[in-house]
Structure formats: structure tokens, C-alpha cells
């Protein structure tokens, strides 16, 4: 009975481990990555404990496996306590800032499959780096402010987003791929 429970535990946390490593591979945000690392490290402990208790011989309380698990669990706990916790503290501020900068709360699904011209793509890349006003875009892209404004209006219409700050979150292929 207990063995089956531990086995289920191992399977669930193996799924969490895979999901978080997958998210980590695609993540381009440092602090969220730190949190994901912490979650992955901790899930690893649960996977090992679950596997040991469900598949190992009865009375798995001695041997080198115990020591290895203990050492790894300690390491994982310390990693979560430093890296993950440090990342999360800073994310509180990020949430506060995002809530005031966006017309809608963060977490909305992003538009997919938007057809943008190469020029519009370069406008979005500039916006990603924090260049927002027509005047700033004009300077960065060597066009007139009115042209920059037209590009932004067209992008907003195509993506159905409401503000140019929302475009910061728009994910499009990088310049080399498009």
C-alpha cells in the first residue's frame, strides 16, 4: 500500500521535473528560470525518495544510497533556499510593475501566427528592448516619427493588442529566423 503511494508520488514528481526542465529550456527570463531550477531540484528529491521507497528492498535505511540521497536532498534544499527564493523576491516587484504598465493583467494568452512585414518585425524588436515612443523608434530605425507611428498602429491592429507596452510581451521569431 505505502509502496504504491510512493510509486505514484515518484511518477507525479517525475512529471513535474520534466515539465519544469522543459519550461526551463524555453525560458528567457532569468528570475523565473531560477525559480524553475529550484522546483526541478526539489522534484528530483521526491523522485529519488519515491523510487527508493517503492522499488528498493525492504528497510532501505542503511547503505551508501541513504547517504547519497541525504547529501543530494540537502544540496537541493539549499539551492531552493538561495537561488529560487532570491528569484521569487524580485518577481514580486516585476508583478507590481507589469500590473501598472499593461492595460490588462499579465498572463493573457499571446496572439499567435501574426503576419508582420520585415519592417514591422524590426519595430517589434526595438519595442522589446524598451524603445517605445514614436520619437525614440524613429531615432532607432532611421525613419520619421510619423512612419514609426504608422508601423506601430498597423502592428497593434494585426495583433489586436491595445497598447505598445503589450507588444513587449509579443513573441515573434528572432530577426535571423524571419
Amino acid at each position, binding site marked *: *500500500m505505502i509502496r504504491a*503511494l510512493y510509486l*505514484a*508520488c515518484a511518477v*507525479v514528481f517525475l*512529471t*513535474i521535473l520534466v515539465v*519544469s526542465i522543459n*519550461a526551463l529550456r524555453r525560458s*528567457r*527570463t*532569468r528570475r*523565473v528560470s531560477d*525559480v*524553475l531550477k*529550484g*522546483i526541478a531540484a*526539489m522534484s528530483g*528529491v*521526491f523522485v529519488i525518495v*519515491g523510487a527508493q*521507497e517503492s522499488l528498493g528492498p525492504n528497510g532501505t*535505511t*542503511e547503505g551508501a544510497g*541513504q*547517504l547519497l540521497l*541525504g*547529501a543530494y*536532498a*540537502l544540496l537541493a*534544499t539549499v539551492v*531552493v*533556499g538561495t537561488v*529560487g*527564493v532570491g528569484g*521569487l*523576491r524580485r*518577481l*514580486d516587484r*516585476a*508583478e*507590481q*510593475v*507589469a*500590473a*501598472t*504598465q*499593461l492595460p490588462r493583467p*499579465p*498572463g*493573457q494568452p499571446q496572439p499567435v501566427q501574426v503576419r508582420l512585414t520585415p519592417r514591422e518585425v524590426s519595430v517589434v524588436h526595438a*519595442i522589446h*528592448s*524598451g524603445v*517605445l515612443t514614436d*520619437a*525614440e523608434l524613429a531615432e532607432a530605425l532611421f525613419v520619421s516619427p510619423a512612419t514609426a507611428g504608422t508601423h506601430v498602429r498597423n502592428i497593434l491592429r494585426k495583433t489586436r493588442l491595445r497598447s505598445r*507596452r503589450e507588444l*513587449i*510581451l509579443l513573441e515573434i521569431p528572432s530577426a535571423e529566423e524571419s
Partner: protein
Amino acid sequence: MKGAAVSLIALNLAAVSALLVASAVCARRSGSDRVRQLWLAIAAFAAVLMSGWVVRLFSHVPASGSPAARMWQRVEPIFSVVPPVAGLAVGVVALVLVPRAVRALQQSERMYTAMLRRVSSLPSLEDIALTRREREVVDVLRAGSLDNASIAERLGIAPNTAGTHVRNIMRKAGAADRRDLMLLGERNG
């Protein structure tokens, strides 16, 4: 070997207890629901690990003799179910909640880093000659109240006066948008 195993368990117990307390405190202080969810997930992970280490610690107690061993033998069948059951529950909840929270937090962080990059060209707060009142307005802006009405309410002034202060701060800082003022003087780190 046995002594080393027991002291390692004790060390682990101390570490997860510290993690549990720290994440519970941070969850209470956090201003964002999603960040709080992640704190609570970490706290729950720590709590499950704690119960697991307690069970393992007691399994090292000599089987007979001491009162602690006798008491443990009585509660052992009940208590040894706690770690796998709690772990399973926490795992399933985390599997549902964490990916959603993480996705939203990634968006927030991208917004935040882009805005920090944006204000990095503005002068630092010490380099701008602000009046005492303007500094108070900056503090309100940094806390996230951006519109004239809420600034006015916080400082007990008229909305138009608040607007004038904001305009003057924007001019002095060279900011193009009042939303930039929320991050005035903030650096990536």
C-alpha cells in the same frame, strides 16, 4: 555509517524547516497572488520533505528499550503514510498551478526587464533636483499609483496639483511617459 546517516537526516531536517519558515513568511509578505502561489508550493514541498525526514529519523531509533522507541512503534503505521500521501497531494496541486503561475510570471518579468532597460538612460534620482513635494510624488509613483486622482488622494492635494508635479518631474527626468516614473532610479540587479 549509521551515525553519518542520522546526522545527515538531522541536517536535512534543519534545512527544510528553515526553508518552510522562510517561504511561509515570504508568502505572507508577497503582494502578488502568483508569486504567493509559488511560495506556498515551496512551503508545501518543504513540509512534505520534513515529514519524510522525521519518519526516516525514527526508523533509525533502536527497536526496543527506550520510551521513544515504544511510542514510535505505536504511531509508526499511521505516521509513515503521511509523507507519500501528502507528497502525492502536493504534487498533483503543483502540477496544475505552477505552470500557469510560471507562464504569467515570465510575462511580468519580460515587461519588467524591458522597462528597466527603458529607464536605464534616464538620470538617477540623486542627479535630478527635485523639491520635497516632488520626492513625495515619486515615492507614490514608485509604489504603483500612477493617475493624478490616486496621487492626490495619497498626498492630500488637488488632482491638478498632482498633475503639475508629475509633469515637472517628467520634464526634469527627461521621461517620455509617466509610467516610466514608476521605475525612476531603479536598476537591474
